């Protein structure tokens, strides 16, 4: 139950605004007291020295959007910082092909990695990987997307955001911006994607709860891409010209919507946009008045992932879920915190 321990309302994360080096670093929300933990002993592996062991990182999608670029870079940077030789960090990229990711990871296990950091493309479908990893006692840390399996047996822990929670927070922000009424459109992510599913669920649930007067009149996939987001919004504006708010499940689609709104002659603020990710472009959009708010999904997993692994191999207990506290941007902090956007 990741959702149980999330406290979402206040965004007073200890902003690291001053020091640019650590700008936007991930912060762990708070480990729920009494939640299940996992130790090296429970897991059943042996101690590994990260400085000499082979480590595998499996990226799911091409490093072609800010989130993925920042995520991969963060892992590599942290490894370098810890003095791990480049040859010891194997990285693979599944190019959005799930089967490739499975075989990528299996091949890394075969090649003797002692720790796996995985950014999964999909939450289900990891059976064969777990079987293989379990046989060799390789701990798996999944980042950004959770895998539907048993922690401490199938994998070690999950570090990341709570996507459903992100959807809820976006709903809160949009409801507030609209004064709890109006017509809202959802730009869905790629169909079948867990992120899409959870961000949609969280958003819809929360809207129903906090602002039942808001009508969800339109939901179409924008494939997480700017171009599709723009196209769909253009169609939307023609058939539902009285739309008041747009919830974009990532920043790119939100930015596409912004271009479409401009093209349709709308002024900044006519239609409120709320999106998720926290990229520079979207945060800048808040400053320009097009976006009402952006919920962050922090991709800088490197430090936390390696910290967790180190602790684990030192015998410390590791919580089953390490939920990071995503910040959020709105007009109050968009200008000042622009530097911590990625």
């Amino acid at each position, binding site marked *: 139950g990741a959702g149980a321990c999330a406290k979402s309302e206040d965004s007073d994360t200890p902003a690291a605004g001053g020091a640019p080096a650590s700008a936007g670093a991930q912060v762990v929300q708070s480990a729920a007291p009494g939640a299940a933990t996992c130790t090296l002993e429970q897991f059943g592996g042996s101690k590994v020295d990260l400085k000499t062991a082979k480590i595998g990182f499996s990226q799911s999608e*091409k*490093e*072609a*959007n*800010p989130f993925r*670029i920042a995520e991969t870079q963060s892992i590599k940077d942290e490894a370098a910082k810890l003095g791990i030789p480049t040859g010891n960090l194997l990285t693979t990229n599944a190019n959005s092909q799930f089967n490739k990711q499975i075989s990528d990871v299996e091949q890394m296990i075969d090649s003797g990695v002692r720790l796996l950091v995985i950014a999964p493309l999909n939450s289900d479908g990891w059976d064969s990987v777990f079987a293989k990893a379990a046989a060799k006692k390789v701990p798996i840390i999944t980042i950004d997307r959770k895998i539907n399996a048993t922690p401490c047996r199938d994998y070690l822990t999950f570090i990341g955001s709570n996507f459903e929670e992100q959807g809820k927070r976006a709903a809160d922000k949009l409801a507030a911006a609209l004064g709890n009424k109006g017509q809202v459109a959802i730009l869905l992510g790629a*169909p079948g994607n867990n992120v899409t599913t959870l961000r949609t669920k969280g958003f819809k649930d929360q809207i129903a709860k906090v602002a039942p007067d808001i009508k969800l*009149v*339109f*939901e*179409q*996939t924008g*494939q997480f*891409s*700017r*171009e*599709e987001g*723009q*196209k*769909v919004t*253009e*169609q*939307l*504006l*023609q*058939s539902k*010209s009285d739309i008041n708010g747009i919830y974009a499940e990532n920043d*790119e689609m939100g*930015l*596409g919507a912004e*271009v479409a709104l*401009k*093209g*349709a002659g709308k002024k900044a603020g006519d239609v409120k946009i709320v999106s998720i990710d926290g990229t520079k*472009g979207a945060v800048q959009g808040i400053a320009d008045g097009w976006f009402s708010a952006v919920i962050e999904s922090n991709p800088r997993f490197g430090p936390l992932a390696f910290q967790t692994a180190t602790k684990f191999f030192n015998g410390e207990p590791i919580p089953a879920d390490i939920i990071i506290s995503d910040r959020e941007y709105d007009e109050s902090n968009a200008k000042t915190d622009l530097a911590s956007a990625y």
Partner: protein
Amino acid sequence: MTTETVAIRPRLKNWLPAYGVYAAIVLLVLYNVAFTPNFLAWSNLRIQLIQVAPVVIVALGMALVIGTEGIDLSVGSVMALAAALIPLYLGYGVLAAILVSLLAGVLVGLVNGTLVARVGLQPIVATLALFVGGRGLALVISGGRLKDIRNDDLIFLGSGDFLGLPMLVWIAALLVLVVAFVVRRTVFGRRLLAIGGNRPATELAGVPVKRVLITVYVLCSVLASIAGLLAVARIQSSDASAVGLLIELSAITAVVVGGTPLTGGRVRVLGTVAGALLMQLVVATMIKHNLPSSSTEMVQAAIILIAVYAARERKSR
């Protein structure tokens, strides 16, 4: 043996293949007029035209290639390459950036054309290599990063108006006219069709077949790179990983639904435009009625089948 009636009867029979796609458009428009609010508003029609323009431009090139009994899978990658190059050269001015991206199109076309015409690869295989590798190259060039475009001149091409019509639509319309003219009135056009009809015969007739084929692939790639730079201009950013994704399938669909046979020897330019428009209207209709993407895909499948079934050449055997 052949009389006047003989010549006329097949023409009547050919009505459906030739004009079926237009009839389908009319039906769809009528449906929308009845059931979709605001459909006939100029702003809506305008959006449909803008959205269909890049597909039309790519499909024009595809139609030429298909006319030679070929196919070009690499068009999406060419769009990505063009998109990736633009921000790199925008510093030297819009014209420089446009020229460089068109040049990329020329180069890709030369590679494709050479593989098809000189090496003798099957077009689908020859262009598969650049379909895979081209986008990789684009991502290498762009460093994988999406770049915002702030150049007003370029953005004007994507979102500006000229005499009440979007620039995109002007450009697409102009290219349609040019391609139609090339196909109907030029030596190159006739040769292209002859190659599609019977390549060895055309070769023996002394037509420089290889040169014509290479030119066709170059034209197709150049049209794709134009579409790529217009896509950049329109979304005001360059995203080599997303631009032109799967457009080869849309383009082929437009060409075939428009009545151009995959077996070559014939090119229907206006039909291609209509094919693209039909598919655009289908998607728009589904979106406007807020139907899920699964049903959009199934309806598209059905329309492709119906259109091609109506247009198929009946084997008299």
